């Protein structure tokens, strides 16, 4: 069973933990990605210096966003593209739908883009009655099964190969005969190519927007971006405004960080820079190219202490290495973006009230920050959300009062010692052996783990006795 977004976080987590297939599927993909990234990073000369440079590039752009966006607009326009600006998700969808209608589009071919998910584009296209063909293999699987992506690089990572095979058998016109990866890929290829070639409009996201050339860069491992964007009459790009980089050289640096962090590959199979529509004399390419630059809360994030999050290049390393993501998968996060980066982004996009669990459901172990290619201090940003949640009174009353009581004693060492002595004495009564298997108020612990029975006297009490006098102040 796939947990749905409308469930509470707790319900989604329970569903995810009960799903053995999910665990198997996530472990296969994330485990492989983790191992490959380690090899790629070890082989890279001074990866840490390269990360510093990548972070500096993004920080510079985020601090000077207006300058580079104007530059990008001027150069993209000079190359023949049309640039549109959208403040919200709704505005962005409206622009795309209007353009599709202008092009009299019956069907669009979409190359995977997380921004498209973020603004709800699949839904908007359906509402407008426009047929959508998802051309990324994993996104195709998601579309066939009527689900949402569970990872930003592998949207269908929660599905096992066996589940995908079964899905293709029922949904493809000429399904594969043998259950091998090659036969399944061939089946998807047959199915998808028809759709790509028949589409009126191709829609993509952007991995990078290059300010000084006006180019849009996409990265795929399947070549589906190229195949779905070149044949249609119109190419529409939707991109977050933070995707900008100053020059092609900067884009290339970021690409090297992106692919190594995401899949461990030195570069992705296909990397394309699109600059404007088809020119006179070109043999192929779209007649019109539109670029929709989307804010959707990004400017606010910059103002509200989340500027570092705008460095994110959507590589997915943080989630691949996250102990919590590895247990519960992406759907449990309930937003467009899962894992540590999603736990920072979802409260910004959907509101903290609905998503306060996400920044809390983290052990703050710091692995995500250790692997992030642009050094986003994810634990610090998550702690920032927790503070906001506390200030706004969103944390549960039981936690607030428990913590308040404990803090009251912690401020008064004498009373603290007296209170802890009482607590130890009562805990001593609860078990004879060294372990307690039930403990009032600590059911969350003892449901799964035993608790060592505390000593009769605290360290401080024992120490005092040993010294034979009070410890020196």
């Amino acid at each position, binding site marked *: 069973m796939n947990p749905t977004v409308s469930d509470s976080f707790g319900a989604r987590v329970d569903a995810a933990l009960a799903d053995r297939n999910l665990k198997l599927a996530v472990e296969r993909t994330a485990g492989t990605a983790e191992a490959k990234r380690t090899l790629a990073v070890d082989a890279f000369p001074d990866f840490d210096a390269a990360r510093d440079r990548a972070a500096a590039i993004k920080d510079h752009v985020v601090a000077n966003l207006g300058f580079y966006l104007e530059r990008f607009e001027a150069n993209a326009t000079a190359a023949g593209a049309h640039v549109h600006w959208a403040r919200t998700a709704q505005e962005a969808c409206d622009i795309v739908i209007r353009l599709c209608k202008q092009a009299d589009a019956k069907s669009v071919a979409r190359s995977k883009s997380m921004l498209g998910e973020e603004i709800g584009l699949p839904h908007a296209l359906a509402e407008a009655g426009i047929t959508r063909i998802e051309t990324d293999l994993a996104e195709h699987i998601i579309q066939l099964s009527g689900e949402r992506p569970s990872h930003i690089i592998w949207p269908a990572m929660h599905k096992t190969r066996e589940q995908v095979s079964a899905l293709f058998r029922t949904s493809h016109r000429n399904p594969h005969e043998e259950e091998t990866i090659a036969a399944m890929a061939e089946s998807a290829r047959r199915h998808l190519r028809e759709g790509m070639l028949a589409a009126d409009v191709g829609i993509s996201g952007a991995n990078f927007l290059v300010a000084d050339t006006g180019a849009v860069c996409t990265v795929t491992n399947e070549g589906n971006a190229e195949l779905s964007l070149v044949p249609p009459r119109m190419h529409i790009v939707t991109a977050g405004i933070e995707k900008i980089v100053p020059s092609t050289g900067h884009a290339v640096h970021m690409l090297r960080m992106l692919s190594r962090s995401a899949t461990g590959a030195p570069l992705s199979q296909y990397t394309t820079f699109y600059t404007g529509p088809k020119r006179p004399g070109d043999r192929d390419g779209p007649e019109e190219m539109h670029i929709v630059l989307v804010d959707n809360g990004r400017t606010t994030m910059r103002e509200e202490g989340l500027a570092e999050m705008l460095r994110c290049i959507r590589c997915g390393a943080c989630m691949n290495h996250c102990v919590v993501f590895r247990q519960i998968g992406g759907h449990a996060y309930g937003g467009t973006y899962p894992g540590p980066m999603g736990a920072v982004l979802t409260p910004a996009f959907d509101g903290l009230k609905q998503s306060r669990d996400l920044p809390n459901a983290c*052990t703050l172990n710091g692995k995500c920050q250790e692997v992030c290619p642009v050094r986003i201090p994810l634990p610090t940003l998550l702690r920032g959300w927790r*503070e906001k949640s506390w200030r706004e009174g969103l944390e549960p009353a039981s936690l607030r009062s428990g913590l308040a009581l404990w803090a009251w004693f912690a401020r008064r060492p004498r009373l603290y010692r007296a209170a802890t002595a009482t607590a130890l004495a009562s805990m001593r009564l609860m078990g004879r052996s060294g*372990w307690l298997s039930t403990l009032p108020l600590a059911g*969350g612990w003892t449901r*799964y*783990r035993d608790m*060592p029975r505390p*000593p009769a006297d605290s*360290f401080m009490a024992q120490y005092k006795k040993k010294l034979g006098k009070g410890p020196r102040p």
Partner: protein
Amino acid sequence: MTRPRVALFVTCLVDLIRPRIGFASIAALEAAGCEVIVPEAQTCCGQPALNSGDRKTAEDLARRTIAALEPYDHVVIPSGSCAATIRVHYPEILEHDASWGPRAAALAARTYEIMAYLDEVRGWKPDGVALPATATYHDSCSGLRELGIKRQPRRLLAAVDGLALRPLDGAETCCGFGGTFCVKYPAISNAIVGEKAAAIDATGADLLLAGDLGCLMNMAGKLHRDGSPVRAFHAIELVAGMGDGPAIGEDA
């Protein structure tokens, strides 16, 4: 500095759950030539408040802890996460405070996790300590990532005669404790520590060692619930020659 006056910060878990870690710390520090004082005004470093988002309480406890600990040459803590709270987070959360900010920074610079202190600052090794056993070591997250604790405990443990360390698969992977995380999201925490316990069992070692009591309670509690024979100790207990006593959860 020939004989530094060292304040031992005991951590609330050590104080209440396993005092042996405090006594082992004193023994090792004294063997390493320190004068050890346990300031009575200490309670808890405030980490639970900090990580729950209760910034005001965290700052308040930070000020009190600083005041209790700052008269000493060094502050030493048998916990990577509490040491990181003082070393890394106190200066951050008090940065805005003109009088306490500099005091926090000054204390941070004199505060050490115990393994790093014994190994790097004191250049000390246990002498004549023997324990014939096989052990495996878990690198707790805060110590590892915020303070770079990795080689120091291994160097100290290598000096224990007869102790053989076995590598732990995923030694740097979080055990799922995470302070209040383990009680706020117990099912996820359980899934994580379940895998950790299986990896520990798979080493075939007699002992599980680590440098943070919170993580140790989590892993040992899971191992015990699952019926595993692996016994858990704080690494300082072995280093101080107290590895032949009761393990975590064993009756004294």
